């Protein structure tokens, strides 16, 4: 079943999955993995943990740029469509006002910029997170189900340039993981 799988590099091993017993343990482990120089890894928690983005060394999201471009595109489409219709395609004199009466176009322009921004935010987020994903190698581990309940997980992917199975597992154990599992692709 290849439908809506994440696009991952080929290889027989996805990576390793480590479980931690508390948000604080996971937080410090993230700092350790970040400082060890890993780049292809992620944390999985049942609820947002304040400051985890900093502990993971995440850069600012590029999503705001998508939203800005889509909002400006929506605005441009709004004013462009109304302007083109009113001056070129079907010019009508309405209450003696000029054909290009921009104040009358602002409400629709505003709404379309909001619509563009909202669509950009939702679908841009989907695209950047590779959603919808119906299957992911991590789902093969039954312990990972607790990710949405009381489990705090950290996964490192095998195509990370620094990934070496033994040393990565050793690092995670040293950082306080209570369980480390290998995950097949």
């Amino acid at each position, binding site marked *: 079943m290849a439908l809506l799988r994440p696009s991952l590099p080929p290889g027989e091993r996805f990576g390793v999955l480590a479980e931690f017993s508390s948000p604080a343990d996971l937080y410090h482990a993230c700092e350790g993995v970040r400082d060890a120089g890993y780049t292809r890894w992620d944390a999985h928690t049942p609820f947002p943990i304040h400051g985890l983005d900093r502990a993971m060394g995440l850069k600012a999201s590029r999503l*705001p740029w998508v939203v800005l471009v889509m909002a400006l595109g929506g605005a441009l489409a709004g004013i462009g469509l109304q302007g083109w219709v009113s001056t070129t395609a079907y010019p009508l004199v309405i209450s003696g006002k000029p054909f290009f009466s921009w104040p*009358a176009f602002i*409400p629709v322009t505003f709404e379309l910029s909001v619509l563009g921004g909202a669509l950009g935010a939702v679908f841009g987020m989907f695209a950047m997170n590779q959603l919808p994903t119906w299957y992911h190698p991590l789902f093969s581990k039954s312990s990972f189900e607790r990710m949405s309940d009381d489990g705090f997980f950290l996964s490192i992917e095998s195509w990370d340039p620094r990934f070496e199975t033994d040393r990565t597992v050793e690092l995670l154990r040293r950082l306080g993981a209570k369980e480390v599992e290998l995950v097949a692709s």
Partner: protein
Amino acid sequence: MIDHAHASHSEIPVLQASSLWLPRQHSWQRMPMVGLVLAVVGLGASLAGGLASPAAHSQLWHSWLVGALFALSLGLGGLFFVLVQHSTQAGWSVVVRRIGENAMATLPFVALLFVPLLFGLGDLFHWSHADAVAADPLLQHKSPYLNVPFFLIRALVYFGVWSFLAFWFGRQSRVQDTTGDHNLTRRMRRMSAPALIAFAFTVTYFAIDWVMSLDPHWYSTIFGVYFFAGSVMAFFAFMTLIALGQEKLLPRVVNGEHLHDIAKLLFAFLVFWAYMAFSQYLLIWYANLPEETGFFAQRLVGSWRPVSVGLSLGHFIVPFFFLLPRTVKRHPKALAGVAIWLLAMHALDMYWLVMPSLHANGIALSWLDFTTLIGCSGVFLAAFGWSLRRQALVPLRDPRLPESITFENV
């Protein structure tokens, strides 16, 4: 909520109550004195110059009204901020709520700035002349509302309501500093909803009475909200500046997270002002009814036109794109710059509202415009500084204080 606050108490730094006051050597200790000097010099020069010749009277009172509106709007914004924090049971804002409480404490003092204007009613308000009313059917029709005695009674009600609310909410908060009584928080929350309703009505009618009726033929039902939106934006600009100072003063209490939220509110009210301004313009432009268009016709011809265009650029378009990125909202210097700019724009907005009724044919700057603005701002600063000095910088024993100190934007 209170249990939660206690539970997280162990994570926050231990703070001495005495360190949460304005330090004795801090330059803000001189704020009341500086404000007082500005007030005496600014208003003294204005009165001396404006009253010297009868020809300058009208200019004096119009300039004075602009300055008084500017000072008043900061206090009203502070009152609104405090009421909204209580009614929404906000946790993040506790460490900066005193900025609003200090701003609203200025209201009874700024009210005094409107007393001298009573001598200028004849110069300001066309409808206050009996002969003008007798010759004008529209003014006769409006005279049950627009007459001097009722106008004065209403003014008394507005300033009375605002002063009472500022006093009451300020006092509960100060009492909690010593007793730590959580019931005060509940009581303030219960009172905040009716207080917000009273606030909405008084601000709306105040704007109609003191600004809209300068042009007694014109009316716009959105006008009160327009004045409100600009006032609250100006308050958030002022609050940004004070919060930046408090971040330096109390780095473990006020931080970039709080400033980020204040900047978001500043941005929101900047947009809200533009929304109201454009809604007012659009409906009047579209309907094109003679009794409504006068206001804009006056402001869109001659030298008033560049002022109107400049206001929409400087009060909305430019700061909108400038304040949009998250980075700017967390950058102290950029934030201070845009806050000062927006305060200047709010003063221009007040000028734009009032002055065309005196200089119908075009903008005519007078030195009185500057002295009255400086003087009225001085009164505000003096009262703000006085309130800043007499109580701690944060509500010391508010049950949500720990939540506010550890607050983070997700």
